[in-house]
Every structure is written in structure tokens, then in C-alpha cells.
């Protein structure tokens, strides 16, 4: 499993001392841990804090490390609770986090309570930078900026919580822009990365290789589409994509649909589904079919399909692991919200 987030203890781990013991001169960053953290950031790994300290400790750590922390849990409860809250808040799996702490007891507590997490001492961490768990095969521009984007996400969520109004009004207030367009060769590494990393919004059970994606981009029988997202909090870059097989018959099939969970709740998957339905209708299709592996992990995707008018022929309890969700596209095309722009080529 690839580690997406490292959760750091502060005292004598990410900091070279104990925060509360030296109020006048709070400790600097630990050079070895900071070097490891910076290397991982450049590979697209994000960072978070779980510390038995007041919240000021997180602000201090941000200052002395220069890192963007996607989440900070400061308090006196069990560290395993902090880890669970971070995992839930970031919407990642517990098997995608590493927890680093110098205290043997804390490591044992987290290992027992969150067995999926990779639990490391600072000594382990210095070496672990070279482990395969911390070495995603390739690093895209989106991956390098991931920590920064999670920090922007925190700001956006804070504002959303105090915003009075509907989701659409909030998206408009954020100056959300969703740009849908045909994929080019330059998009292939990021599309491949999305196919590896996305689970909650992914119709396929397996990754798609760069070679396969490149062939599909060049294939006249296929339409490979990219979705980019930005708003006034920041630019998330390429957050989603799809591969459509333009059938000779009246059925177009979406053989791959995927979106980063970072874009969840921002109208992106709904915009892509509406755009795909419009595009299929314009291309002469009668229905748009989305074969989808059904698992507890991708329930958010099923919600988006259901909310966008797609239905599987069978109903009741999910039976086979895969179902085909369909919607008619020959009628009037679904509306696109005004913050979505699309280029129609490809």
C-alpha cells in the first residue's frame, strides 16, 4: 500500500525537543525528520500532526518546518483517536497513513487500535523514505502540490461551515471553475496516477497503464476526457477523467470514470456525468452505459450516478460485483451549471 499521508508526533519527533518545556525558546525542527518530510512532500505525500500539546504547537511546527499540514490534532486523548479523525477528515484509508512517534507506548497504542496504519519510530522514518510504500512510481505536478491543496481545502471547509446557503450558492461564491476537455498525451501520466490512486470515485477495479491510456487517446473509437478544477482558494489541476467507447450501436459505454476524492462535494462528478450524457446524445447515442464495480468503498460514486439519473437494470441488494448503470440520452440534454466550461473537440 502506498502511504498518502504521514501523521507526525511533535515532541522529540518532528521537533528536536519538547514544546511545553521551553516556552521562551520553543524547539526547532528535527533536521533528519524535516529532510524526510520535505522529500516525501515533493513525492506528493501529505503531512498531518497528532500531538499531546495545545493547538499553538501545530502553529509553531508549521512555522519552523515550512510544511503545509493537511490536518492537525492537538489534545490529550488517545493518539489512535487523533489518527482516526485525521483519516476520516481527509477521506483516505487508514491503510494509506504512516504514524511516526518517538514514544514506544504511543506507537503500540496506535498499532493495536489502527492495525492498518504503518507505525514507525523516527529512526524507521529516516530509512523508510527509501521504502516502496513511500515511493509512488511517478510524481506529477498535482502530486507535488498535494499538501498545499489539502491546506487550501481546510480553508474552503472552514468557510463552507459558516456559509448560509445551498451547495450551488457556495460553489458560485468560491468562484468554482470546472473545465472539461479532450485528453492529450501530456495528460496521460496524471490520468494513470488517478487510475491508481482513486477508489471512492472509480468504476474500475484496477489501474490503467500509461501505454493503454496513450492508445486510447489516439484511438478514433474512444473519447478520453479530462476534468480540471480551480476556485479562489486554489488550483487543484486535473482531478478527474473518463474513457468512453463510442459504440457503433446506440449505446456509448464509459469504460473508465474516475475522480480524485479531493474534488468531492464540489460539483465535479455531477458536471462530468452531465457532460458525458450531452456528448453521447449529440453523438447519436440512445443510452450512456457506465459499467461499475460495486464495492463499499465507491458508494460516493453510486450516489453521483443515482443523483444524475443512472440506474442499473437489476435492483435490490447489490448482487454481482459489477453492475451496468444506464441513462437515456436521446431526450433533452441535462443542464450544465454555469461554472462548468467545456471544449467539445475530441
Amino acid at each position, binding site marked *: 500500500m502506498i502511504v498518502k499521508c504521514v501523521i507526525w508526533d511533535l515532541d522529540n519527533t518532528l521537533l528536536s525537543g519538547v514544546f511545553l518545556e521551553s516556552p521562551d525558546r520553543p524547539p526547532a525542527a528535527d533536521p533528519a525528520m524535516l529532510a524526510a518530510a520535505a522529500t516525501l512532500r515533493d513525492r506528493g505525500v501529505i503531512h498531518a500532526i497528532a500531538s499531546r500539546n495545545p493547538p499553538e504547537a501545530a502553529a509553531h511546527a508549521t512555522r519552523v518546518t515550512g510544511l503545509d499540514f493537511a490536518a492537525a490534532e492537538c489534545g490529550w486523548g488517545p493518539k489512535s483517536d487523533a489518527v482516526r479523525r485525521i483519516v476520516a477528515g481527509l477521506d483516505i484509508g487508514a491503510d494509506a497513513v504512516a504514524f511516526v512517534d518517538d514514544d514506544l507506548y504511543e506507537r503500540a497504542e496506535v498499532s493495536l487500535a489502527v492495525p492498518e496504519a504503518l507505525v514507525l519510530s523516527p529512526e524507521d522514518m529516516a530509512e523508510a523514505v527509501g521504502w516502496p510504500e513511500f515511493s509512488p512510481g511517478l510524481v506529477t505536478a498535482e502530486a507535488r502540490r498535494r499538501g498545499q491543496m489539502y491546506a487550501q481545502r481546510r480553508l474552503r471547509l472552514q468557510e463552507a461551515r459558516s456559509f448560509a*446557503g445551498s451547495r450551488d450558492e457556495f460553489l458560485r461564491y468560491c468562484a468554482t471553475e470546472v473545465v472539461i476537455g479532450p485528453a492529450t498525451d501530456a495528460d496521460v501520466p496524471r490520468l494513470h496516477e488517478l487510475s491508481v490512486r482513486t477508489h471512492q470515485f472509480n468504476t474500475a477495479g484496477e489501474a490503467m497503464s500509461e501505454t493503454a491510456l496513450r492508445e486510447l487517446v489516439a484511438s478514433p473509437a474512444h473519447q478520453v476526457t479530462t476534468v480540471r478544477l480551480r476556485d479562489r482558494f486554489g488550483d487543484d489541476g486535473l482531478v478527474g477523467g473518463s474513457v468512453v467507447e463510442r459504440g457503433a450501436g446506440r449505446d456509448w459505454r464509459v469504460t473508465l470514470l474516475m475522480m480524485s476524492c479531493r474534488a468531492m462535494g464540489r460539483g465535479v462528478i*455531477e458536471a462530468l456525468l452531465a457532460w458525458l450524457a450531452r456528448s453521447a446524445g449529440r453523438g447519436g447515442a440512445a443510452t450512456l452505459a457506465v459499467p461499475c464495480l460495486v464495492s463499499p468503498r465507491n458508494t460516493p460514486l453510486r*450516489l453521483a450516478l443515482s*443523483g444524475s439519473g443512472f440506474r442499473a437494470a437489476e435492483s435490490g441488494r447489490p448482487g454481482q460485483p459489477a453492475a451496468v448503470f444506464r441513462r437515456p440520452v436521446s431526450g433533452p440534454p441535462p443542464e450544465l451549471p454555469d461554472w462548468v466550461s467545456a471544449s467539445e473537440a475530441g
Partner: protein
Amino acid sequence: MSDPAAADVTAELRDILVRATGRAELRGVADEQPLFGSGVGLDSLTGTLLLREVHRRFGVDVAGEDLNLDALATLGTLAAFIAERAA
């Protein structure tokens, strides 16, 4: 919804919906108002939060039992789905 058990469930679902969306005005949502689409505007994020809370509160795994998520059509259909299983 004349069934008293379902009516209790609906009242609690309304609270859950308000928490999942962070929108107090949704306390006024009618039993038969569609949850998807404009108006309530349930999406994949708020829908996931709602399903998680329903599972925790009523022990009913809607996503695991309803492939098309038809139960999420309205608060009324969701309450009926839960009342049927929790009984």
C-alpha cells in the same frame, strides 16, 4: 406517512440531513420532496455523510442493500426503508 414508527424515523432523518448538509433550513423539507437535484441538492459528499449516519443510528446499511439507492428518493422513502428493516 401514517405509520408512527416511520414518522419518528422521518423526524430523526431530518436532523441527520441538517447535520450532513450544514443547512438548518432543510429542517422544513417535506417527506415527499426529492433529495437529489435542485432544492435539497444531495450530492455524493452529503449523501455519503447521510448514509454513514443512518448506518450508525439505525444499523441499516442502505448502500449495501439497495443497488440503485432508490431508498434515497425522499425522506419518506428512506424512513420506510429503515422502518421495514429495523422492525
